[in-house]
Structures are given as C-alpha cells and as structure tokens.
C-alpha cells in the first residue's frame, strides 16, 4: 500500500527526480504545495510551462534564449572577432557579470568525459568550428578564441582538445588564467590554488 494518496506519491516521485532533492526534501516540497493557495501554485505551473515553451537554444552560440539568435549574438555592439567558449549557460552569466568582456560566446553544454560517455559528438563543437569560417565578404572573421572551460580535469582536457583542433585554423587560442581570487587575503587560499598560483607566477 502507498504511504500517501496516489497524486501525492506521484508529486513526491517527480520532485525526487530533480537534482539535489532527496526523499525528505521531496516530501517537504509536496506538502508545501498542498498547503499553498491555488493561485500561487498556478504561477509555479505557468512559470515551468512557459520556460519550456519559450526558451530555446540559440542557433549560433547554443546559449539559452527567448529570441533566436540570442541577444549577445544579435547585438551590433559586440566584438565579433573574439569568441569565449564556456561549458554551461551559467558560466556565460558569470563572465557577463564582469561587464568587461564584449565579445561573443559559445556554450558547449558540457565537457569531455569518457567515463560518462561524453565525447566531442555530445558537445556543441561542430557548430563552433563552423563559426570560425569567415563569410564571403571576409567580415566577421574570428581572430581569437578564449577557452573558459572549468579549471578541473575534464575542463582542461576539453580546452586542450579544442586548442588542438582550432590552432591549425590560424585562430589565436587563449586559456583563462588560474590562480588566486582577487580582493581576498592570501591566507584564505587553499593549498591547491596557492600551488597553481605559485607555479603560474609571472614577472612584473
């Protein structure tokens, strides 16, 4: 016999599919929903439906967007000669927050991980290479590609793979620097970061 009426059990099971939600949290969320007024629940349902209906992947850079191409790809003020490659849309947001970068983006939607069966085919690499071909007018030619994949094993391998692929095409390939967070105290850096920062030190 089920612990709860079938609709409640079904809701709990659906919540449990979400990342980071275990049985207890799922149960808590389900009972929260049961207690909330109808219009509040409707807003949540509508928000979920709308996001699935309206949000698509940009056909140029694969970013999440409600217009295609996305606002970065469509903007006339962005520098089209430089592309920053990131793993996920939220990485793009992190870079955009600096207001320092005015080039274009490319979202891979993941990083190479043979253990999890993720190879180049599973990532948005093919349309990245296509973007590097100059159009007939020769305008919009990409001069530099910044590899901003995560500073972990998989991100490094992905950057490395892309560099090998793209360098022969005559595009400058750069990798974001790794080291200490700015504005913090040295004492707060963990050993691994400090070690990287010391290894990658430079002359001033």
């Amino acid at each position, binding site marked *: 016999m089920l612990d709860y009426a079938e609709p409640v059990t079904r809701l709990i099971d659906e919540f449990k599919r979400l990342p980071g939600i275990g049985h207890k949290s799922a149960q808590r969320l389900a009972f929260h929903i049961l207690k909330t007024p109808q219009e509040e629940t409707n807003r949540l349902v509508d928000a979920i439906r709308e996001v699935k209906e309206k949000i698509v992947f940009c056909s140029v850079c694969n970013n999440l967007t409600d217009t295609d191409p996305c606002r970065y790809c469509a903007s006339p003020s962005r520098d089209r000669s430089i592309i920053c490659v990131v793993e996920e849309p939220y990485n793009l947001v992190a870079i955009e927050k600096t207001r320092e970068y005015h080039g274009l983006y490319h979202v891979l939607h993941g990083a190479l991980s043979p253990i999890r069966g993720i190879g180049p085919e599973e990532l948005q690499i093919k349309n990245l290479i296509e973007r590097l071909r100059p159009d007939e007018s020769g305008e919009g030619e990409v001069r530099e590609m910044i590899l901003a994949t995560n500073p972990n094993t998989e991100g*490094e391998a992905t950057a490395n793979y892309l560099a090998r692929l793209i360098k022969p095409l005559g595009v400058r390939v750069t990798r974001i620097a790794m080291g200490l967070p700015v504005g913090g105290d040295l004492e707060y850096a963990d050993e*691994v970061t400090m070690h990287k920062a010391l290894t990658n030190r430079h002359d001033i």
Partner: protein
Amino acid sequence: MHLRTIEAVNFRNLAGSVEFSPGLNVIYGANAQGKSGWLEAVYLLATTKSFRTSHPREAIRHGEKEAILRGSVARGSLVKEIQLLIAETTKQTFLNAKREPMIRYLGNLDAIAFTAEDMQVVRGAPDARRKFLDRAIFGIQPSFLGTLSEYNRALKQKNALLREASETDDPLRFLDLIAPWNDQLITLGAEIHSTRTGYVDKLRERLSPGLFQHETIEIRYKSSLDGKGDLSDYAGLLRERMGLRLKNEIAIGYSLVGPHRDDLEILFDGYEIARFGSSGQQRSALLILDLAQLSVYHDVFEEHPIFLIDDLDAELDRTRIEILLNYLDGRAQTIVSTSKRSIADRYRDRAATFQVQSGQFLSANQRTNM
C-alpha cells in the same frame, strides 16, 4: 604536537574517553576489547583515513547513523579541539566546534602508524609502496593530494577511452581524443615524479643506519621509465614513451606508462626485501622507514607527529621493542597497544598505561589482573 584526550561516540564498540600522556602510552587488554579500535580512532581523527578499512563508514556502530571522534590537541600551550564526524556517505571535519574544510583540518594532528596492514609496504605489491610514499608526502605537502587525485581522474578518463578503442574496429579515430588526456597526464605525472623522488631523497638521508644492529636498508625510487632514456627531462621522456606505447595501450585497453606504475625499491643488506627478506627483517625495514618518515616530518615542521604501534608484541620481539621505544622516548608522543599485561608492567614507570575492556578505558582502581 600531542593528543591530550580523545572521545568516541558510536564508533565501533568504543565508549567514553581517555587522557593520554605526551610521552609513551601503553594500551593493554584482552583480545577483541577495543585496543586496536582506539588506535584506529586516533589515526582517523588525525588523518581522516583508517588503517583497517578503506570505508570508514564500516566503523559506525551497528544501527547508528553517524560516529563522532573528538580530540584535544596541544602544541605547546596552544590547545585545539578537533572533531571528525563519519556518516554513511560523508565525513565532516570540525575545528574548535566549527566546520573546517578538510584541507585545512589536516595537519592539526598528524600520525604515523605501524600496523600489521602496513606490512604490505615491505611484503606486497608496488601499489602498497606508492601509497606509503604518497601518504607520507600528504603529511608535509597537502597540495600533493590535489595533484594525485587530478592525475588519477585523468587516468580513469584515458582508460575509459582506451577500453572503448580496444573494442572497436577503428581505433585510429581515438588518437585525437586520447591526446588531451595524455597532455594532462604528462604535466601532472612529471610533478608526481619530481615530488616523489624529492621525498625519497629526504627519506634516504634520514634512514637510521644501525638502529637495529647491523640491519641496514637502502631505498631508491624506481621509475617505470628507468633505463628508457633521460629521466632528468621526465616530461619529455614520458611524452616519448606514451607515443611509443600508444598502440599497445589501445590493444590492451588500459594505460601502460606513467608514475602509477612506479615502485619504491627497498633493499635489505643489498637484497630486495619483499622477495628475500625474512619476516623479522621486513618488520625492521618498515620500522626504519616509519622512523625516517617521522624525522623528515620533523625536518619540515620542527615537531613530531604522534607514533602509533598496533599490537606491539605481535609485530616485534623484545629487543626491537626496547630499541624502538628508547628511540621514540623524548621525541614523539607514542601510543601502543598490546595484549600482554607484562609489557604494560615493564614500562609502567616511564609510560602511562591504560586497560581497555569492552571498548572502554578502565580507571586505575577498576583494573584487573589478566
């Protein structure tokens, strides 16, 4: 540094707490009463690793959700409270009652243990010797843990590709996919090689010649690339060997080159200890290595980690015990376990002695004659 007190909650069959002396401590009791459990608890509290199991959750008492070990550590007049919480899927570390990231928790208390399990270092396969080296290095250079785990992760990824390549008809298309992992393995592998050889050099300087009469050992880091070319350019040589062996790697389906195939050569009076040494010689060799590790630690931090010896009399004869305890006296806080009350009695005037029964330390007036 020394461990002043330790308390165990829901950890194996242990209960209660104990106050140790900064010098020699002898824990005695009948078998299966929890002597080794207490040593394991001390080692876990210090290193967050167990010397008895690779899954510390096995030490949570049956029916309980989590085990807690608490200790107070003294460095001169400075006292810190450290705590390790072991749950089914996680371990949490605390310093002075607040959560502390593992990497900063480690180093508040350090321990070197001499146990039956460690005999694999002088008796078993190369993998036990690599672990011995790596563990010793973590103690003095915590960032090495990051380097090693990145290397192992990249190796796993490469092996997944090699396994797949070995099962297809078109292995050539894997070459481009393997290259980025090899690049990382070369950078990280070179770092591992130089760190390990550097540590072995330090260890060699600290091997006490003649500690156990004329029993002397020599050690050498034995790279799997020995004799294959110029080791002073390790990264270059590793790249060359990876290139040469790639076909074989694809054929066999796993990685064949790199520091994960290295060894620590231990020679006892000129002979390889794992193959030609007697049990006694192997024990002496392991002790000499452990004591050298203690000295190197002291060279770096100007203090000694605590030294643990599980089942003292089972592992060592009376003469070796005497030499060992004399050596440690005045150097490191030492905690040993023994099933023989006679040993506790022999050292009673220079050691704190504790009797353990059913997981608990008996007070002085509860102690029985075994």
